[in-house]
């Protein structure tokens, strides 16, 4: 029997990672997490990237990196523009660590990068408004961390929120400075099914939105998406009957859970959802799309 429990393998290649949102039902997480500090991570759409290990990245030099990255971003943004000397675009980049977002003690501390820009209007004494955020993390990457050589820091998952142009600029700076490589992370239907099962099993205190699964129908000229919405309580009840050991999820249980949903749909609509491709999962806890976008709600 294959077992996979509480996974956030940030493995860049060759296996595809299995993802889990930071605040899920496994108690080990909650120990060091200050809800206030990571509240800003919630309710935002994050685009996922896979990052190769970074060479000579040092947590002690975060201020220095902030300074360099600010200059780089400002320079990139000004490229091609005729700018007066001394005009400050008001862009400030900060790098900081995010404590508590670790799966095990061996994981590296998460790093947050934020780009804030000051309002251009002179009379407005506005504070810096965050226009772009990105954070690196590595959770339960034990297998990978064992084989990583000395000078490398393994923060293999990068989540970005904000303008694509900033993501590209920040990405190219990190790639140049630490000799790493960013690539878009896509989520396969198998992993999406895992997420659907795991997130359905999580207890949610606040209002429970419906669990929705979106399927894409292949082999037809116009693209057709089928959206299957289930009442959260019903989904949770089904998952509770399927899951044998709390805190552990097996492939057979995920398959059984999905098969039950498919056969229910087939009984009503005579459509085999198992012949389609799962592209999006959204529950009251989080939602994920196969293109590599996730949103954590709780």
């Amino acid at each position, binding site marked *: 029997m*294959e077992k996979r429990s509480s996974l956030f393998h940030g493995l860049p290649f060759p296996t595809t990672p299995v993802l889990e949102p930071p605040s899920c039902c496994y108690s080990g997480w909650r120990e060091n997490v200050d809800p206030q500090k990571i509240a800003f991570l919630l309710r935002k759409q994050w685009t996922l990237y896979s990052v190769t290990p970074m060479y000579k990245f040092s947590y002690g030099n975060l201020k220095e990196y902030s300074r360099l990255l600010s200059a780089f971003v400002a320079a990139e943004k000004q490229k091609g523009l005729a700018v007066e000397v001394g005009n400050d675009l008001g862009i400030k980049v900060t790098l900081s660590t995010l404590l508590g977002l670790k799966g095990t003690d061996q994981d590296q501390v998460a790093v947050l990068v934020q780009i804030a820009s000051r309002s251009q209007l002179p009379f407005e004494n506005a504070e810096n408004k965050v226009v772009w955020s990105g954070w690196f993390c590595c959770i339960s990457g034990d297998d990978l961390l064992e084989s990583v050589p000395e000078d490398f820091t393994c923060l293999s998952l990068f989540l970005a929120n904000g303008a694509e142009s900033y993501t590209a600029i920040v990405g190219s700076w990190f790639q140049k400075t630490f000799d790493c490589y960013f690539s878009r992370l896509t989520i*396969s239907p198998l992993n999406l099914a895992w997420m659907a099962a795991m997130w359905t099993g999580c207890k949610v205190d606040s209002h429970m939105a419906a669990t929705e699964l979106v399927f894409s129908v292949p082999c037809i000229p116009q693209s057709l998406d089928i959206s299957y919405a289930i009442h959260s309580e019903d989904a949770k009840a089904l998952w509770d009957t399927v899951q044998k050991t709390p805190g552990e999820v097996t492939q057979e249980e995920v398959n059984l859970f999905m098969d039950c949903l498919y056969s229910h749909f087939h009984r009503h609509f005579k459509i085999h959802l198992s012949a389609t491709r799962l592209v999006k999962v959204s529950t009251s806890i989080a939602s994920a799309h196969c293109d590599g976008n996730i949103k954590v709600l709780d």
Partner: protein
Amino acid sequence: MSLVRPFDKLPTLNSAAILLVGTDESQQQQLAEAILKEKKNFKINIHVATSLPLPAERDHIRPRIDLIAFMINMQSKHSLRNVEASLSHMDANFFLGKVCFLITGVGRMNHCSVEMNAVRKLGNLYCSPVLFCELDSEGIRVATAQRLLRMLQICAGHMPGVSALFFSSLMKSSIDE
């Protein structure tokens, strides 16, 4: 509904029959055409079906089936379930080398809905070769057609000294024993 049996009919002189079972009919058609295009010196009958058991009405005109190829698309869990259901409608004697699994769709990992392990377990459980082929690609389709033709010749007994039972020895990996 009748069970498909490997030895209940007499073979026809210099001919062989292959049965393709799978949910994707257009893929079956393409593979069948590729097999027919190949150069061969015996008569070949290609039967296609979406699932087993085969309808009993046409049983008397059906020739003896020498090889059954189950087609599974990794992007569709439905095709796997269909094949698993069909496998229970077969005579056990078929699994002595006259069955093989054709797995397509592995190339796009991000579209796979079937786990690799499920497919490997199927091959191990039924002691039959598992062939990975991207039937969407012309070249691989031709290569697969050639392999199937070769296997069919052996299963139909056209090769003196070589029997379908030998296929199981091809599946042993060098890691086991």
